[in-house]
């Protein structure tokens, strides 16, 4: 056991890091788009949604990973969905207990975490094949990556749309709010723009690698 643990050490750190950047669920895999667009009109909502999703992701990964040997293959997906739906229901009640205003702002999108493809995807592709600790780290990394992406959108949309970040005004009063950024269309534009940035970075890296190869 100890050798297996030490062997997988560099790998486990990798499980954690990959979700943040290289395999970022939103910017690279383009998964789970609905909440990304819908609840990012303020940074606060984006953060809350990201944390809720992360909680469900980590918990469902842990549970799926710990029961992976007892579950016959045929009823696999059904059990995964059951587990995920359970944790989403829990999150729903906990958020209601913490803040009703937040619950109202996120609305049906808390329940809709169930159908977020990222969660079922990680349960099926990773947690059902790996030990508990790497699965938990994978969930944590993917969850953080998701939260990071939501915050990227939330901060930009709130800053331009209401001149504030986390409700604190940063622009002088004469700043004219870009109302469109808070409206649904602003979500599409902002996400499109972020994808542009990521594509440009990728392109530049690929070009640099290409020229390096040529030089060598």
């Amino acid at each position, binding site marked *: 056991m100890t050798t297996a643990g030490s062997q997988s050490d560099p790998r486990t750190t990798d499980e954690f890091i990959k979700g943040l950047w290289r395999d970022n669920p939103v910017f690279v895999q383009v998964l789970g788009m609905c909440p990304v667009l819908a609840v990012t009109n303020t940074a606060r909502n984006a953060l809350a949604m990201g944390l809720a999703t992360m909680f469900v992701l980590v918990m469902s990964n842990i549970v799926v990973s710990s029961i992976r040997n007892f579950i016959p293959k045929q009823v696999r997906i059904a*059990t995964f969905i059951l587990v995920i739906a*359970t*944790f989403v229901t829990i999150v729903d*009640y*906990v958020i209601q207990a913490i*803040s009703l205003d937040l619950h109202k702002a996120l609305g049906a999108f808390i329940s809709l975490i169930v159908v977020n493809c990222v969660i079922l995807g990680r349960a099926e592709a990773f947690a059902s094949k790996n030990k508990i600790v790497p699965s938990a780290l994978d969930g944590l990394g993917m969850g953080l990556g998701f939260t990071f992406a939501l915050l990227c959108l939330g901060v930009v949309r709130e800053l331009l749309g209401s001149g504030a970040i986390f409700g604190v005004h940063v622009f002088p009063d004469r700043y004219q709010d870009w109302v469109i950024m808070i409206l649904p269309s602003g979500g599409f534009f902002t996400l499109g723009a972020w994808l542009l940035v990521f594509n440009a970075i990728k392109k530049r890296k690929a070009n640099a690698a290409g020229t390096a190869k040529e030089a060598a």
Partner: protein
Amino acid sequence: MSEMTTLAPPEVPTWRMYRAMVGIGLLCGLLIVSVFQLTTPIIAKNRAEALQKAVFEVLPGAASSKTFVREGDRFVPLPDGASDSPGVGEERVYAGYDQGGALVGVAIEAEGMGYADVIKVLYGYGFDQSAIVGLKVLESKETPGLGDKIEKDPAFRENFQALDVSLDGSGKAASHPIEVVPHGTKTSPWQIDAITGATISSKAIGGLLGKSTAYWMPILAPRRGDFEESR
């Protein structure tokens, strides 16, 4: 179907599938029910606090509140321990009292179609003034920057500090139905001064208030005693 084509996965006995599903089902059920039990009292408390805050907001001067249920043409206090959400066909109003325990007014929920989606409001009715004395938008998806001024615009909110909804001699209809007039042309206490650039949202508020008061006032106005006696 996949077992038919690929022979690789070994036959799994049906009871194992049942065992797995039932086991997971039990575990999930246990988790959900315990969280539900833990959070329900907190959620109920939050709801009650939010409602009370809204009631105080639309009934200036109120320091305590009490929920009433309509029974035919009278109002009775909500029995203790009743569910915090109204049942089917049950109609609730919220009475507010000042520090001395005197009745300030009654808060009523109303809703109607706005520009984008349904607008829900809570308004306070003062018996002394026969007027709406406060309004709070509970839910709206009006366009930010334009329609959502119904929530923030101070000039518009001033309309609801004393909006006349008194009944005419018959006691069945308003003496002056609520009217929405163009910005800056308000002359009478039953008129609402609309917001420029948010005409439809302003009209929606006027419309839903008109409908709600037409329904409630004939029932509510003569029953002041119901709310005072129970103190």
